[in-house]
């Protein structure tokens, strides 16, 4: 059992306690704690390469699949912490608690990824949610931040309640909380029985709750407010790590536990995906606040992912994995740039704060140009390939009309990405813009990767193909 001490989650958990102690004694030297945190992340990421795998069928899974996902997650956390540290140091609100709370949330996401039972899933989601409540309310001076925290807390608690209700229905009618056991009982169920009806109710409740956590329409109301209210560094975290984790939960729940009733949930997911794309694209048109804009953009991106899952084909599965990786990379880059810039000594809030950036900071302007065009799905950037894969999967499953609506929505959404580019390149400067960072190596790598992966898309393609093959071994 000793070897289990070295799984990434345990390393992180022990690390969190060490950091709390270290920070207590080194209040003046916060950078020591910060570097310690990053070291712990690296050690933890290193251990995702371990070949000590834990049995798949039990409640907690340590397989190559989850290890790769966790590696991506930890890499993302590393980049987010890098941005956060710079941002908070500049705003003089750097507190190491911020990182320890984030790390707790990251442990929660890892538990969600590894969970093979509904109870374990619930534990992971709660751990994540609790730390997010604290992070969103972290900016105590801002009333928007407190409002966002309370709003997320109330709605999050309600959605957890719905999740628990769904879990209890599933447990009550199948007698099990393990994904594989649920799949077994669904396999032998009589379609006309009461149990069947109960299970369907349970699945719908769980779907609603997970869609809330994902931020998909029609459960998306909280997303813009919470994105706007929290610190930009929290927004980065919110828009990447939980999305990856919830996505994996979606895959495992639907493709393992509920595979036998796919006719029930696949239409639901396609509907939710379509609605998210439409709402995300249209509502973003009038947004002036850049965080709200990116929030709606996130909703529409989530729509693409859910739509691809809803196809229930191998191709759709791969497309959704591809889209998730690309979306996370793009979100990291686009929010990351905003953490690096400031207008009149406060952070960037409105799109108009960016006016004339191309004249004062041409380098940052090019970075934003790349991320926005990638998000709009313009080739040769990686965002195009992600959208291409989803649309090709739709067409191959004969959803031509849906594909048509989706591409028309991408044209609409191109408008607001272009609006950002227009503000940066064509408008005149209204406010003094400064960057508070000389070293933007990580940001540059992050952004340039959008171009390079767009030119050599097979790199991500092969990774997702491998992940898909690993996952289908589990799900059979």
């Amino acid at each position, binding site marked *: 059992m000793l070897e289990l001490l070295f799984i990434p989650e345990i390393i992180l958990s022990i690390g969190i306690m060490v950091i709390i102690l270290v920070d207590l004694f080194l209040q003046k030297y916060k950078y020591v704690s910060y570097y310690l945190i990053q070291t712990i992340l690296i050690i933890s990421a290193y251990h995702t390469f371990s070949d000590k795998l834990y049995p798949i069928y039990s409640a907690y899974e340590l397989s190559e699949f989850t290890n790769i996902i966790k590696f991506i997650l930890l890499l993302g956390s590393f980049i987010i912490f890098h941005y956060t540290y710079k941002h908070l140091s500049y705003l003089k609100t750097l507190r190491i608690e911020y990182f320890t709370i984030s790390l707790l949330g990251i442990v929660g996401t890892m538990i969600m990824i590894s969970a093979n039972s509904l109870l374990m899933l619930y534990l992971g989601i709660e751990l994540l949610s609790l730390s997010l409540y604290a992070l969103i309310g972290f900016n105590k001076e801002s009333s928007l931040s407190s409002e966002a925290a309370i709003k997320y807390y109330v709605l999050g608690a309600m959605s957890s309640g719905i999740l628990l209700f769904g879990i209890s229905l599933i447990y009550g009618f199948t007698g099990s909380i393990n994904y594989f056991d649920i799949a077994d009982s669904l396999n032998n169920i009589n379609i006309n029985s009461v149990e069947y009806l109960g299970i369907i109710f349970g699945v719908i409740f769980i779907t609603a709750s997970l869609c809330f956590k994902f931020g998909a329409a029609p459960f998306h109301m909280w997303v813009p407010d919470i994105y706007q209210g929290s610190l930009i560094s929290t927004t980065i975290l919110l828009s990447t790590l939980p999305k990856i984790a919830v996505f994996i939960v979606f895959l495992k729940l639907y493709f393992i536990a509920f595979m036998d009733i796919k006719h029930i949930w696949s239409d639901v997911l396609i509907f939710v995906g379509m609605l998210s794309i439409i709402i995300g694209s249209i509502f973003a048109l009038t947004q002036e606040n850049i965080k709200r804009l990116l929030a709606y953009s996130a909703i529409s991106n989530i729509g693409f992912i859910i739509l691809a899952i809803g196809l229930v084909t191998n191709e759709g599965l791969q497309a959704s994995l591809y889209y998730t990786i690309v979306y996370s990379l793009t979100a990291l880059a686009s929010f990351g740039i905003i953490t690096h810039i400031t207008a009149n000594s406060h952070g960037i809030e409105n799109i108009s704060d960016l006016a004339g950036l191309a004249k004062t900071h*041409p380098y940052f302007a*090019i970075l934003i140009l790349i991320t926005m065009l990638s998000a709009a799905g*313009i080739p040769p950037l990686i965002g195009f390939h992600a959208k291409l894969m989803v649309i090709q999967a739709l*067409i*191959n499953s004969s959803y031509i009309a849906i594909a*048509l609506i989706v*591409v*028309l929505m991408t044209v609409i959404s191109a408008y607001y990405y272009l609006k950002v580019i227009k503000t940066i390149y*064509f408008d005149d400067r209204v406010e003094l813009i400064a960057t508070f960072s000389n070293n933007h190596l990580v940001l540059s790598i992050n952004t340039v990767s959008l171009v390079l992966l767009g030119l050599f898309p097979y790199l991500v393609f092969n990774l997702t193909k491998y992940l898909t093959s690993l996952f289908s071994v589990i799900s059979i």
Partner: protein
Amino acid sequence: MIDYPILSFLIWLPIIIGLVLIISNDITKNAASAITLLTTFFVFVTSIHLFNIYDYTASQLQFTEKIQWISGLNIFYYLAVDGLSVSLILLTAFINFLIAIFASSEDYKNKSAYLGYFLILEGLLMGTFSAFDSILFYVFFESLLIPLFLIIGIWGGANRKYATIKFFLYTLFGSVLMLISILYLAHISGSYAIQDFYSLDLSFEEEALILLAFLIGFGIKIPMWPVHTWLPDAHVEAPTSGSVILASVLLKVGGYGMIRFMLPVTTEAGIYFSEYMIYLSLIAIIYISFVAYAQEDMKKLIAYSSVAHMGFVTLGIFLVFNLLGNNTSAAIIGLEGAIIQMISHGLISAALFFCIGIIYKHSKSRLIKDNFGIAQFMPIFSFMMIFFLMANSGLPGTSGFVGEFLVITSSLGSSFIFGFLAATSLLLSASYSLKVGKNVLFGDNLHNNQGYIECENNEKIVLGVLIIFILYLGITPGLLFNLLDKTVIDMISFISLGNI
């Protein structure tokens, strides 16, 4: 055959140098101009070399480069050329070289980035004309929007924000419809290679929908009559070189796409709907000519004249559908006429936009009423401009005549009315072209010299070279016929084999 990747070279050399120019901010204007001039010259020489070693008696694709790009999806980095591609590649390289000469005396803020975007545009255009994998084609086709968007948006006129976003969204809308069709075709054929789409067995409904999507996608790019409104806006706001590249090469991408995709893939539906599409082209030719006559702004006038001239291109292409089976030789003439009209319009419209740019530089106005009597102050320039205006109206002996003549001949093969209506354009285009000449060049202007001085040497070179080429193609069009004959005849016989 050669064993070095000449097409990749043509694509990536300008793109890489362009990126370097954009990133290096502190480079001087002269150095940036010199680098651009050298690069475009080098690309031009290479494309002439390509033209020389291109074997126009062979019917298969040449200089093929095929590497797997996305292995799991069967998407290839697949470049090749046929006669159509070679002629458009030559046009692209030539026009970009002229732009580099012309821009060397112009003064822009952040000029190295300006020239860098043009080089990127050149590379992407080369890629568009030589890609034979549909996704690769789409990637190049769509990427074209980015540099042009920035060129017009950063260096454009007062109303540029509106014009750029309109242009971008219009073309994006068309191209996503095209993307859907491509993906559908790929879904059926299991391959993304364009040539594999040709032999697909599609039902009539499928073909009709795909035809509609292609018609909207490429029709916006060309542009055809009801969806042309982005073009005058974009032209008016674009800087001179931006207008030149837009009119002379970017519009041709639409025509190229129609010939490459629409003709062979959706032949059956095309034959069925050909009459309606011919009506659209005729509306473009006649109605837009009247619209052009009514314009006050010279740039808008030439922009509308471009739409009218591109009407001949679409007319030539749609005539192929109409004539297939009944009169194959007229179909061949129509398609060749369409292609030659593309090349010739590329030269003439470029020349006219250069001329308007020169006038604007002196008088700071593009309105016809603000400019008059230029001939007294700029005699050489006026001589050249009146020549281009004549060529624009299809004067025999200039290249403008050849394409229109061929298309009109071919339409007579279909019906007398079509030929008659198409031929009215010769009258209409002469009237609006000469209106510009009469007022702007020969108006009465004894007292009011608005600072007109004879154009600079590099501008004279640009316009002079264009005169030579327009005359050369007008007097000996055989050069282009040689290049195109095999490609066109093969294509026509291929599509008539499959459908008659």
